[in-house]
């Protein structure tokens, strides 16, 4: 197990370094980066002064070394709009994003895993058909459209919930339901197919043959063995959510990381964009690492091949 962890850790460090490189490279995709960093209506003579100040006149290798050195110390430069530490702005938004992510993941697991399990165990009954239709619909419904429709129904029409913003429990309801709807559909489908796979295995037949109660067969033998794909997907989605749900946060004016990223992109505030995207990528990589390590714990066979 120790070798497995060491190999995974080394790989994660490499991915983080390469991802930071990719963030640096991405900002160069559009050609002259100064033009990205500036408001559209800037005077030509100011461009050069700013280019000099931001260090874009240095050789690329120097700029790269400076970016990586700064990034590894958590220094992505100053926000062009707020004149404040870019990473500080990102971290400030983290609690809101964490709250939303935790709520929607909890909601997803509470809804999706039992639903997937139920539809698999009651395969080809009415419960299964209704459940499957719900999953397919949930997966096909774009989150931002669902969000708009919920706003219309619950905020505009019924006036039960606020349209957006933050501050109370009521503000949390719609954004977390929108996020959970999509993820639940995916997690439930995966749970259903994973449980169906396991139910066909010989050891389940053995467990039943030796007279084990159905609760134990399902609760212990089936669930634990179908956990791997479920943990993978749940982990990956958690990683995505921690990076901020760009679209959902924007619709509901939720002051999290995703909305900050969108606003920074719209304001062309690239130090903040770079800080936010790098942060997301690192969190995502760590979640991946966590998922991989959970694999090793859930299924010892995985440890053999790193």
């Amino acid at each position, binding site marked *: 197990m120790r070798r497995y962890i060491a190999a995974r850790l080394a*790989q994660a460090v*490499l*991915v*983080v370094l*390469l*991802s930071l490189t*990719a963030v640096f490279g*991405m*900002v160069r*995709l*559009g050609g002259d980066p100064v033009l*990205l960093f500036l408001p559209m209506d800037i005077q030509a003579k100011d461009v050069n002064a700013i280019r000099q100040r931001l260090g874009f006149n240095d050789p690329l290798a120097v700029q790269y070394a400076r970016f990586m050195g700064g990034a590894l110390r958590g220094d992505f430069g100053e926000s062009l709009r707020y004149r404040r530490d870019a990473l500080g702005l990102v971290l400030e938004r983290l609690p809101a994003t964490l709250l939303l992510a935790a709520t929607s993941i909890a909601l997803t697991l509470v809804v999706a895993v039992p639903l997937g399990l139920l539809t698999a165990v009651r395969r080809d009954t009415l419960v299964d058909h209704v459940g499957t239709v719900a999953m*397919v*619909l949930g*997966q*096909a*419904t*774009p*989150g*931002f*459209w669902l969000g*708009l*429709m919920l*706003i*219309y129904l619950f905020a*505009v029409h019924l006036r039960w919930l606020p349209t957006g913003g933050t501050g109370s429990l009521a503000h949390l309801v719609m954004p977390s339901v929108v996020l959970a709807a999509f993820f639940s559909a995916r997690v439930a489908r995966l749970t259903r197919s994973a449980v169906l796979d396991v139910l066909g295995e010989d050891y389940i037949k053995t467990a039943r043959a030796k007279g084990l109660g159905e609760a134990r067969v399902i609760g212990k033998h089936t669930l634990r063995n179908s956990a791997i*794909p479920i943990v993978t997907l749940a982990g990956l989605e958690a*990683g*995505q959510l921690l*990076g901020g749900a*760009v*679209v959902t946060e*924007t*619709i509901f004016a939720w002051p999290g990381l995703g909305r900050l*990223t*969108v606003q920074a*992109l*719209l304001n062309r505030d690239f130090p903040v*964009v770079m800080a936010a*995207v790098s942060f*997301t*990528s*690192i969190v*995502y*990589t760590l979640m*991946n690492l966590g998922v991989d390590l959970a694999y090793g714990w859930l299924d010892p066979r995985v440890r053999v091949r790193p």
Partner: protein
Amino acid sequence: MTKWLGLLLTVAVVLVAGAAPWLTAHDPLLADFVASLKPPGTPGHPLGTDQLGRDLLARVLFGARLALFIGVCTVVVTAVVGGLLGLVAGFVERWPSAVLMRLADVQLSFPFILLALTINAIVGLGLRNIILSLSAAGWVVYARVVRGEVLSVKQRDFVQAAAALGMGRARLLFRHVLPNVAPSIIVVASLQFSQFIVAEAAISFLGFGVQPPTPAWGSMLSESRDFLYVAWWLAAFPGAALALTALGVNLLGDWLRDTLDPKLRV
């Protein structure tokens, strides 16, 4: 049953998109301020009109064209680029394989929508650039799947035999390996398609991607937010069109996977 629903919906969307100019008498870009914000059911405007008095049905229909065009272009670009890279990496192994897998790891460390959105904000707005951004963010799935398939296909006896008979590498790759990984490419393409059109709509919704007045479902939904209190139909219909399209293609993709390649997990 679901496979027929998927096929039906997909064919319907394709037909509607293709026949858009003949299905409506209205120009999707033509404003008519006198007839602005008319509700659905207004004579001449079955789905109503938007804030500029443009016919909503015409805009939804032409939006289908745009969505399918972007989806098809992106799927083709990603399948060709990702597929070729995956083929080469799986076939040659050694360093191309290692490089590709690290590249894939890096790319997969960014959430898809965030990556596509950021690239789009950097390379610029418009139709061509949204296709480019989605492709740049999406090719890696093909590369990974194809590489994995090639690794297993090339161990098979008929490939080994052809190599032993002295067949050239290029011919071996394209005659014997490619046809055997083609089903996976098709399955991935069908499963990615709806992800691409929904992502395009999301990016246009956020103000990047396709810009107004071009009738794209995403930017229509974005404009509809300002009128949610007075005109629900502006948000309801473009989104429903998007959801139905995604539903049809998803069901079709599931069916293709079940018949062509049941073990594939994307």
